[in-house]
């Protein structure tokens, strides 16, 4: 069970590899990776990801602990960046390892749904038209009701 909140980039390949390899107790590993998506017009210059140092780590650890309690998981991992990000940059990843694929998938979806609406991160997008805070989506809040 690991949480990392960091400004620098992470090496997705190395992280997924290290998480999955040498693991013969869990046949199923699920990974979600979040990537900075450009605007439909392709005019996104950068995104600033703000966070709440101290609370962020604790919130993510709490979400992981809840996932470990609800599903049969051997391990889980959350990495989330803050600071300046550009289109195509990796924002974050979660990974789950379980003996069963259903548990690995559900736990990864749970981690993502909670992280989206309960971990203190805020995105501001800078396009050629100016800067704007990304609004939270109702569907993200609603997603929590299913767990």
């Amino acid at each position: 069970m690991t949480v990392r909140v960091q400004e620098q980039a992470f090496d997705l390949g190395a992280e997924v590899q290290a998480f999955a390899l040498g693991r013969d107790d869990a046949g199923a590993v699920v990974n979600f990776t979040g990537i900075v998506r450009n605007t439909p017009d392709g005019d996104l210059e950068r995104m600033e990801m703000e966070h709440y140092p101290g609370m962020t780590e604790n919130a993510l650890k709490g979400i992981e602990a809840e996932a470990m309690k609800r599903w049969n998981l051997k391990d889980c991992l959350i990495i989330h960046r803050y600071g300046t990000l550009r289109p195509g940059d990796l924002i974050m990843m979660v990974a789950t390892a379980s003996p069963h694929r259903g548990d690995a998938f559900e736990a990864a979806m749970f981690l993502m749904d909670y992280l989206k609406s309960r971990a203190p991160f805020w995105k501001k997008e800078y396009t050629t038209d100016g800067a704007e805070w990304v609004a939270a989506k109702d569907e993200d809040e609603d997603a929590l009701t299913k767990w």
Partner: protein
Amino acid sequence: MIDVLYFAWVRERIGLPKEQVETGAATVAELVEELKAREERYAAAFEDVSALRVAVDQELTDFDAPLAGVREVAFFPPMTGG
């Protein structure tokens, strides 16, 4: 003395990320009323608290939460990580 933190557009509207507040407020809601009474920029930031979230000592809570013994209160919009 309570540390009061602001994030995202709340921080921008109020114009600072953090301040120390001397308050006798019993709840978060009372603290919000005190802050709104200070200056227009606070009134603007807290105009619609239903659009805001609050954390007390780094735990998400609601505006009814008591402030007795609390060291840190943070105000921010709904989160948009991931």
